[in-house]
């Protein structure tokens, strides 16, 4: 028995966590393998072409990859896999994008047949210009992103050596008074800056905003920050004023209500993707200043039109921030080619172990439908089934019991269906925040919750993203957007901010037994279970009798 790693023929790598060499091995394989699952004993990594090219982009070669596998592997590594790795990695860098003093942006190849092959592709033809010499072809500067994306799809990813524009300089410093960037945040900033552009993956609550601030302090240039909604825009602003040398006046908000363009501008995806008469009137924001840095918050939610526009921003540094690279639409490769490769990630549990995010106790509460509900469920139309079982009356009782149990703790009740939430709000005597709640009212309620004046808040899915609830210790999820894994991760993130008293956070998911609610819940939990957050399952009856 030697070696902590088992290389499977399906290109997954199993890493035994409790092995002495596990840490060394993890460091060796992290640059090229994607961490897929991190439960308690065996972590699963996967070798993907994207990951291998990522590694090439970061300066690793096939020999290093093979060495790492052979060195730590417990059993002989299948030969075919090694050959495959070498072949895949050799595909990267045969094509390079670079700046030519005379011709501007050019695509150069060290392997002429490859160039011939890609030039023959119908998708590439409209993106390239004149053939300068047998190995070089001109590329229109505005197609830099497009061609990278296309070449990746063709399996010949191009190395982008064309560099970045510095953008308009603007002094930004971190105001590290009484706090400092955490080590992993520093690493993330360094990883990003060294690589030029890319994505940083950190768990919810691990301080992604600060990574953004750190990157801005490195760039010292005007910055465009794209966030999911207005509330989150305010939080960014608040945090930046607090943590950096920037003042309120230097930070503009570009949203549905305000249209300010300042050296640092925070815009929402929603306003950018607003469409009037077939055009996106707000996309000109990208050109309104000479941005030196573009930050994409929650990059896994980046809407398709923004992708399209990002393709034209390839000369600017781009930083993507996210808790998970899982996209429900499977467009991970677009993130890779347009924003950049993954520059940093850390398993949730590792950051939890360092004490930067709160440990969480995840509990799935199974409730039984009453006999009459079961009958009604059985006869419900397919599209109504989820709504029916997710809003069963029994859940209300259980939720009330849970709130009672955690009386005095800051508790969030999160759900999908407004009727259900209104009813819960009534029974729990708690305010409800939903889509129609005005921003002013929302902030007022959040403040009250933050100050502890309110201890229970019922929120709809508007609260999925970027609400900073520092002392929420209990979250109760009563219904969700079907089987969305990243929603579950976001919601758990609501309670993972470290607690002042080091208290363990609790995350309850109330699920109706033997219905599709249970199937969806299983799907939703899978990502977290793979991140090492094991769910306990308890029966509602037990819980009710305990009380």
């Amino acid at each position, binding site marked *: 028995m030697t070696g902590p790693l088992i290389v499977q023929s399906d290109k997954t790598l199993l890493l035994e966590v409790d092995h002495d060499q596990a840490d060394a091995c993890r460091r060796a394989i992290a640059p090229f393998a994607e961490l897929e699952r991190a439960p*308690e004993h065996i972590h699963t990594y996967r070798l993907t072409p994207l990951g291998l090219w990522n590694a090439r982009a970061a300066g690793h070669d096939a020999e290093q990859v093979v060495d790492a596998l052979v060195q730590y592997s417990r059993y002989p590594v299948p030969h075919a896999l090694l050959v495959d790795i070498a072949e895949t990695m050799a595909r990267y860098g045969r094509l390079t994008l670079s700046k030519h003093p005379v011709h501007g942006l050019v695509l150069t190849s060290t392997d002429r047949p490859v160039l011939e092959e890609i030039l023959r592709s119908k998708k590439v033809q409209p993106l390239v210009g004149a053939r300068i010499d047998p190995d070089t072809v001109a590329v229109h500067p505005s197609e830099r992103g497009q061609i990278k994306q296309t070449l990746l799809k063709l399996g010949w990813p191009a190395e982008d050596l064309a560099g970045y524009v510095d953008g308009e300089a603007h002094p930004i410093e971190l105001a590290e008074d009484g706090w400092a960037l955490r080590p992993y945040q520093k690493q993330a900033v360094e990883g990003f800056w060294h690589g030029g552009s890319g994505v940083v993956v950190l768990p919810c609550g691990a301080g992604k905003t600060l990574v953004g601030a750190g990157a801005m302090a490195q760039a010292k240039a005007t910055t465009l920050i794209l966030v999911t909604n207005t509330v989150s825009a305010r939080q960014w602003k608040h945090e930046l004023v607090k943590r950096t040398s920037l003042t309120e006046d230097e930070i503009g908000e570009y949203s549905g209500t305000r249209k300010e363009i300042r050296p640092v501008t925070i815009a929402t995806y929603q306003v950018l993707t607003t469409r009037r008469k077939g055009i996106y009137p707000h996309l000109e924001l990208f050109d309104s200043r000479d941005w030196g840095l573009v930050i994409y918050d929650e990059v896994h939610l980046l809407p398709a039109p923004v992708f399209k526009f990002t393709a034209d921003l390839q000369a600017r540094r781009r930083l993507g921030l996210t808790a998970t690279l899982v996209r429900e639409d499977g467009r991970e490769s677009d993130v890779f080619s347009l924003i950049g490769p993954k520059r940093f990630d850390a398993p949730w549990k590792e950051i939890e172990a360092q004490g930067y995010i709160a440990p969480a106790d995840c509990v799935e509460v199974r409730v039984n439908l009453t006999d009459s509900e079961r009958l009604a469920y059985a006869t419900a139309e397919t599209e109504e089934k989820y709504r029916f079982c997710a809003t069963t009356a029994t859940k209300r009782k259980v939720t009330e019991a849970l709130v009672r149990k955690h009386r005095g703790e800051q508790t969030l009740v999160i759900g999908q269906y407004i009727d259900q939430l209104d009813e819960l709000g009534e029974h729990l005597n708690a305010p409800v925040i939903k889509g129609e709640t005005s921003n002013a009212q929302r902030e007022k309620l959040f403040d009250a919750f933050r100050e502890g004046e309110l201890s229970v808040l019922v929120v709809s899915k508007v609260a999925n993203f970027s609400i900073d609830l520092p002392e929420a210790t209990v979250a109760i999820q009563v219904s969700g957007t079907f089987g969305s894994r990243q929603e579950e991760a976001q919601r758990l993130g609501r309670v993972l901010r470290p607690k002042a008293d080091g208290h363990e956070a609790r995350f309850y998911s109330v699920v109706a037994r033997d219905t599709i609610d249970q199937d969806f819940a299983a799907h939703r939990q899978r990502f977290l279970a793979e991140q090492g957050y094991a769910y306990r399952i308890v029966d509602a009856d037990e819980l009710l009798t305990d009380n």
Partner: protein
Amino acid sequence: MTTPPRTLAEALRARDDESLAGLLRARPDLLTPVPGDITQLATRAGTRASVVRALEHLDRFALQTAEALAVAPDPAPYETLLGLLTGDGRDDGEYRGDADAAIGDALPAALTTLREQALVWGEDDRLRLVRTARELLAPSPQYPSPTGLGPTVAEATAGMSPGRLQDILATAGLPATHDPVSAVTSLSALFTDRARMGELLDTAPAEALSVLDRLVWGPPYGEVTPNPTPPVKWLRDRGLLLPVSTRTVVLPREAALHLRAGRAHRVPEPQPPAVEAVANRDPQAVDSAAAGQAFLAVTTVEELLKSWNGGGPAILRAGGLSVRELKKTATTLDVSEPVAAFWVELAYAAGLLASDAEADERYAPTPAYDDWAELPAQDRWVRLATAWLAATRTPGLVGGQDAKGRALSALGPDLDRSAAPEVRHRVLALLASLDPGTAPAPETVLARLRWERPLRGASASAGDTTDLRSRIALWTLNESELLGITGRGALAAHTRALLDSGPAEAAALLAPLIPEPLDHVLLQADLTAVAPGPLERPLADMLSALADIESKGGATVYRFTPGSVRRALDAGQSAADLHAFLAAHSRTPVPQPLSYLIDDVARRHGHLRIGAASSYVRCDDEAVLNELLADRRSATLRLRRLAPTALAAQVDPASLLEGLREMGYAPAAESAEGDVLITRAGARRTPPRTAPVPVPEGPPVPDATLLGAAVRAIRAGDTAATVARKDNGTTDAPAASSGSLPRTTSAETLATVQAAAMTGSALWIGYVNADGAASQRVIAPVRVEGGFVTAYDHTADEVRTYPLHRITGVAELADDATP
């Protein structure tokens, strides 16, 4: 001093016993049946089939030597032969000193081989190639020689007129001779004389030289028009091109040899091409990689057969697996289809799977599989490897087509290639001859194999890998890697042992490299179990029943799902069994979600019960049912209580009614909807029927259409039978006798029909249809072609086509009778 042998038989007779044994060893076909004496042996050694076989077993240089001898004078001294291989030393712009030296070194050995195989006999000053071999290797228009040389001047001028020969001599600047034989000698002498030939060619126009350039290395034949271009004419007039037929000319051998500086082969290959290594790996790494693959091979075959445990795929009518089944198998094994075909064929070759020979034939594991599965992994591998080494089946062909364009299916017929085991052994022997850890480049291996066993008549180009032997060799390399014969391209130590020593030694070498089966797994809260290595069989069996396999390789990842747990419960396990099993085999505590999952599934398992009953008894009074069950007479009804007010019975409703009535009850039958069935006597009805139609005397009265048709038919038949026919000139023809079929010879038939088609007149024919029924018809031919006559048939009143060979005879109709 013995006299030199005059025949092959004498040469053989002169050889000692050992040398004769060597001959028989090299050419075992000479032994069946054992020849009666040396003469018989020599005769048999000279038969075409045997010589072909012997030539096919020569390496490339020996074959080149034989080919050179075939174009040399018979007999040829050693020096001539050497000259044909090295050239006559004239400088042709390339330095060949090293090559010539190598030829000089290798030639005696090649000659020894040829002598030993009785293809060449005679002393060095009088080397003779066996006549059959000479015929096989010598050039002829049908089979151009591998040397690319044409026939000699004497052979090419064999049919030429003496006058033409003298013309050639004159044009070539030679004195006239008296007879053709001396003319040929004179011309040959010119062509073989380097100096004079050089002078002659110096006068040639440049285009003529370029024509020669095209022909010099063969094929030596060229097409010419009846009026050749001046350069061709120049060459033809001087005998440098000799006519073979009106349109073909040939470059005579002597002239070609002069142009080639005396060499029979463009590239003599005295030395086998070197096998180049792509990498020299650590032998230990090679062995462990191969062992890993060997273990994978064993587990894959086991997995394949396990998946066919309950009856494998159906066998195609033509034999073999359908493409769909192969695809399915490939998906099951998570490999590509060609690889899946390899595993299936391997299991078949090892006798682990076969047809079950039932009415609807399916593949299934054989009893030998059960024995095999009990062996330790290394012995299982040895069984597979030995079967593979000897197998003539070539899975590489699967997916291709045979000569008739039929698809070749896995396990199907026509996959046997007798060359396979030999090629496989050659490849492995070649690998074994390298240092341990050396991974050779496949193309150099192929080149070496082609040198050792060249294909007769095939092009010697190095990159050509389409011939069967090369393909088998490539497959062998691939399959070796799959099977763990080689590891990372180099031969593993256990394979060397298998080839040199035997199965036991190979197994002993392999055993320590194969991971020990484990007795535990790691259970995780995301409902997976990871076995960090191979598992002990009972554990693996149980786990694969209880969980789905998600990832395979050195380790196995299992995932528990409600479905998989239910499968285990269906297989007779209880929830408590499962808990105990997991607790016993897990290194870590069983995660709560997993225990919960098992309990949750177990809770619902068997909640609904399904069974079959033929009829039931229902009664609102429980006491009556109690009574009924207690009654001993009810035993034959096989009643079983399902609920307080319902019993199930295993007899049909009628018998149940009868039985209960006999017991003194008054049961009533129920319909499917629960209504009481009222039984009344005589209520049986047929399905709807129509009343029978009366049967009148005589046939039914025909309707108008039928009548019209009948009249027309009668009329036409009448015309056919009664028309007066023209006398066709043959007095004895029975055509005159009306009523019988006309008879004419086929030539007459054809002529008459053609004439009728031209004039558009009607004919009276006798015709025999496909059933052999003869009839007479009146037709007006429209067209005669391809043995068919298309005609308007007056009898049938439509245009029809008749095969001419079915027309027994024709007669023209009298003009006035034309309808």
